[in-house]
């Protein structure tokens, strides 16, 4: 509860700083503020409770995912202070909107009532529509923002219709009451149709195939920093909210809709990995890679009631850190080469061996090769799925991660095997710091997974 309040206060505070003409304090303020909020959030550990008439529920699950969301935002804010250094007069706007995205994320993680869930998902999305379109003189960015907006609000229409039907069956938005109803003997078709529509909207938010069409375009067109933000925060938070939603209804969703989640998981794995093969643009590649990672996470949601949430947390952490690390390097490369295609990385191995080695490490992490976190994350999810008896899903997962290795290697090959064409890449101190932080953490939790999986 306090976390949410202080995060919104931080957002407002950043704008006050702009009004007081303390522009150069904005970046330090957001970094300091988010670190403090991280501490405040950790303070809630092992202190479960529900607040404001069971609107917001704080459990260890919420605290852990909140901590991850705050940490992602912190890393992105550090990168953003560098990325927006030549656009100083707007920095307060960008930073404040990012903080509000975090607010929305916290609502989605702590909801105990569908009303709060809806407000959270919309706060997150509406802020992100604007951020994706925020390069105003770039037609691509405008287009990305607008596409995201149109499709996102179309999906929220379905979400609302689903919630309304569920309300019709139960006369309540409270998750406890809905759960009670779902455990009852007769479940009305209204309720099931509603659930199905809400599931569609959630699939859209986490960009699982066949609801993924927006993702590559939006990721390509949006400013790189926002792409990094969307591909990590939205995905992780979306999955956490998804997990929570499935978990509430116990075995109702596994019994009724497991086929749907299985189908979407397989489709995401296949489409994501196969389409990624053909990509020449690094951001599009990351978008399709994100779709395939949504597929791996969805394997974890099949039969959600039997699945431990720590697997999702661990996978999300590994995925986010690798992605942010990759983007920290890629943004420096894009800035100095002015191109966003994979060929921009040509010859990086000769020019900047350290950067190339780090980028290789993050790519291997995403591909799921030991000792990075990506490997154990996949291993954890697959072994849980086998225990629950989903062999065919694991088979598809393993096959598609083999395809995955190929396209991640494309970036690595570009760096080492292709001739260099540019001068040395300049990378700022902030980007280096973020890069090293991500890398060390990915290795650390890759070698000692119990640091995260042992949490709960």
């Amino acid at each position: 509860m306090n976390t949410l309040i202080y995060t919104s206060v931080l957002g407002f505070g950043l704008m006050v700083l702009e009004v007081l003409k303390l522009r150069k304090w904005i970046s330090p303020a957001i970094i300091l503020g988010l670190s403090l909020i991280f501490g405040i959030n950790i303070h809630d550990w092992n202190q479960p409770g529900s607040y404001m008439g069971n609107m917001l529920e704080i459990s260890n699950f919420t605290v852990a995912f909140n901590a991850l969301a705050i940490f992602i935002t912190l890393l992105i804010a550090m990168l953003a202070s560098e990325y927006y250094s030549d656009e100083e007069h707007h920095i307060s706007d960008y930073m404040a909107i990012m903080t509000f995205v975090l607010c929305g994320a916290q609502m989605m993680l702590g909801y105990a009532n569908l009303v709060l869930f809806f407000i959270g998902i919309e706060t997150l999305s509406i802020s992100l529509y604007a951020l994706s379109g925020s390069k105003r003189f770039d037609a691509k960015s405008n287009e990305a923002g607008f596409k995201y907006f149109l499709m996102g609000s179309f999906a929220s229409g379905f979400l609302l219709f689903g919630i309304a039907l569920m309300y019709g069956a139960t006369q309540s938005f409270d998750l406890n009451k809905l759960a009670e109803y779902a455990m009852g003997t007769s479940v009305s078709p209204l309720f099931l149709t509603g659930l199905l529509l809400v599931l569609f909207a959630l699939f859209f938010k986490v960009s699982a195939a066949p609801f993924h069409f927006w993702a590559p375009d939006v990721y390509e067109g949006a400013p790189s920093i926002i792409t990094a933000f969307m591909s990590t925060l939205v995905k992780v938070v979306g999955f956490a909210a998804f997990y929570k939603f499935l978990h509430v209804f116990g075995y109702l969703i596994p019994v009724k809709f497991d086929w749907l989640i299985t189908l979407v998981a397989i489709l995401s794995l296949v489409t994501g990995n196969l389409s990624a093969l053909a990509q020449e643009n690094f951001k599009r590649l990351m978008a399709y890679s994100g779709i395939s990672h949504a597929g791996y996470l969805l394997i974890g949601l099949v039969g959600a009631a039997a699945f431990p949430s720590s697997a999702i947390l661990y996978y999300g952490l590994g995925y986010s850190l690798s992605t942010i690390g990759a983007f920290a390097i890629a943004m420096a490369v894009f800035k100095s080469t002015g191109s966003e295609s994979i060929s921009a990385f040509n010859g990086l191995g000769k020019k900047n061996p350290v950067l190339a080695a780090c980028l290789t490490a993050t790519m291997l992490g995403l591909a799921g090769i030991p000792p990075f976190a990506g490997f154990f994350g996949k291993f954890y999810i697959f072994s849980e799925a086998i225990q629950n008896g989903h062999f065919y899903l694991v088979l598809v997962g393993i096959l598609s991660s083999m395809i995955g290795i190929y396209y991640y290697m494309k970036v690595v090959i570009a760096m080492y095997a292709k001739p260099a064409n540019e001068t040395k890449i300049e990378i700022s101190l902030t980007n280096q710091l973020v890069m090293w932080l991500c890398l060390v953490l990915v290795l650390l939790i890759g070698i000692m997974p119990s640091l995260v999986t042992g949490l709960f």
Partner: protein
Amino acid sequence: MNPITNPESTTNWYLFLSCLLFSIGVMGVLFRKNALIILMCIELMLNAVNLLLVSFSAYSGNTDGQTFVFFIMVVAAAEVAVGLALMVSIYRNIGSIDIQSLNKLKW
């Protein structure tokens, strides 16, 4: 059959009506190429949901649904503000809001 006084049929009539409006909204989103009209069709979808919630709420004597409608209106207003701002900025750059002219990024 009297749709207003017959208890069983009435909500079903409202359910029917709002499903119809919702589907018209969905069809409009897919049908039109003009971004502004797509936005209006999305508003229509949200209104169909509002109608459904109000009718459920009125027939079960439970205020929660009507309170939620209040929040949907809040969100719709915010969404339209951001959407129209995006549309204006697109129009400034490419001089059209036909979604077929949004082809810098392939779909």
